[in-house]
């Protein structure tokens, strides 16, 4: 949402740390329009990874705004003076309305407060050009796969991926598969089905029998906070190693002390959530492993150790010009890295600059 708003809104924080004055009490000379200052040619329109890290930096310096200091101003005062309220309402009215619903503040009068937030995971299941995974007949589309959106470390549009896959690719590749593959007749008596079904039933039974003291949400939040701090906007070798040590501890806590009430015979949302959090624990571990292995900064993957002298992402194409595909080798076993080299014939990857 902030991306379109940044066309006209200006981002700033107070120059002073912990300045608790209302925004309209802070004069122009006491404001730091830090994106305009750091990136004079792109200004407020730098891409989201750069804008997010810059917001995190000023908040980490103690210059963030709002009750908890985790926020920066997105200010439309100048745009309203320049173009008039009617024009701003026409362009952004519904976004302003969304903001008002959440905060009960009027963004036509006071600057919005924004902060970067995690909202989906980049990367996904490996697929071929027909969107089929390594399991014959299992197609993976949208955000769940690693084709356009997932393979792009700047993040793209999840809707674009869903549309492109669903409208333009799958109708051809999936029907081609169904028309050409020789499929044996199978029934639920098949040993693979039986085995999977009993594994699933055991897992459900196990989750319901723990009857510990922690809610699923509290463990989910603990894991989320660990990932936010160490595998989020800024990563480091020591932070990732810490996370890799902590995740098994949280996993053990989950399987020993989670409290899932109710049964499996009726709708049980806590049970559904518990199954997901069990999976998130595995996924989180793999994400940290992947982030640790990639000793460069690249797009949204920003490693503290690898930055240019002026604090921008330092890429290393000599060593990391590949897609990391991690092969699942069984529960509880370490995944194996398969490198898919990226070969460029007409363009050369280069350092981005928004100065």
């Amino acid at each position, binding site marked *: 949402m902030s991306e379109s708003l940044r066309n006209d809104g200006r981002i700033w924080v107070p120059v002073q740390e912990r300045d608790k004055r209302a925004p309209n009490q802070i004069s122009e000379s006491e404001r730091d329009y830090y994106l305009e200052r750091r990136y004079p040619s792109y200004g407020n329109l730098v891409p989201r990874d750069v804008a997010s890290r810059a917001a995190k930096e000023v908040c980490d310096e103690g210059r963030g705004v709002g*009750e908890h200091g985790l926020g920066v101003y997105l200010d439309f005062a100048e745009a309203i003076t320049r173009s008039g309220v009617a024009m701003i309402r026409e362009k952004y009215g*519904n*976004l302003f*309305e*969304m903001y008002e*619903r*959440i*905060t*009960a503040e009027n963004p036509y009068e006071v600057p919005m407060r924004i902060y970067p937030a995690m*909202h989906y995971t980049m990367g996904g299941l490996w697929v071929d050009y027909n969107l089929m995974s390594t399991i014959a007949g299992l197609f993976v589309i949208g955000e769940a796969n690693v084709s356009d959106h997932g393979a792009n470390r700047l993040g793209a549009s999840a*809707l674009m991926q*869903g*549309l492109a896959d669903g409208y333009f690719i799958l109708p051809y590749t999936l029907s081609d598969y169904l028309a050409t593959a020789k499929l044996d007749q199978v029934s639920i008596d098949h040993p693979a089905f039986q085995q999977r079904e009993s594994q699933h039933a055991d897992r459900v039974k196990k989750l319901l029998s723990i009857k510990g003291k922690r*809610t699923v*949400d*509290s463990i989910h939040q603990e894991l989320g906070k660990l990932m936010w701090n160490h595998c989020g906007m800024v990563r480091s070798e020591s932070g990732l190693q810490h996370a890799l040590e902590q995740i098994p501890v949280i996993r053990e806590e989950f399987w020993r002390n989670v*409290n899932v*009430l*109710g049964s499996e015979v*009726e*709708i049980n*949302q*806590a049970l559904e959530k518990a199954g997901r959090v069990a999976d998130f624990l595995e996924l989180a571990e793999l994400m940290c492993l992947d982030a640790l292995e990639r000793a460069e900064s690249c797009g949204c993957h920003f490693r503290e150790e690898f930055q240019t002298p002026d604090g921008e992402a330092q890429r290393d194409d000599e060593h990391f010009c590949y897609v990391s595909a991690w092969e699942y080798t069984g529960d509880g076993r370490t995944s194996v890295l398969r490198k898919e080299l990226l070969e460029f014939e007409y363009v050369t990857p280069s350092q981005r600059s928004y100065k």
Partner: protein
Amino acid sequence: MHLTLHVWRQKSASLKGKMVRYAADDINPDMSFLEMLDVVNWQLIEEGEEPIAFDHDCREGICGSCGMMINGVAHGPRRATATCQLHMPHFKDGDTIYIEPWRSRAFPVLRDLIGIAVLLIESFSLAVLSPFPQVALRKPTPFW
């Protein structure tokens, strides 16, 4: 904030339901309505009572899976606002809130505040066509 909730509890489609009164204490007024229900649920789980079941997915006003009757109005008091986009600043400390599932023959209650599943793809494709997805969320389509 301290609120009094009256929530429809119904264990399954075949069992009878009833309104149950809960105190929602120490609610941070910056929370969303669904976050307020999360807090109530954590309390219930601690007391050994099953949490209130309600549908939600993205909580960003995009997917169209949330929805309940709040004080007798679909999605609550704010116009053109999905339940997940309803936030606590629009309520007052001490308020009493009645929370019920949709009631219509087409959407039988399956549990607590959950009616029959809606086909997300339908709202999804509408959301794609509409630049601002809330607009597309008003009419979830049953899956048959």
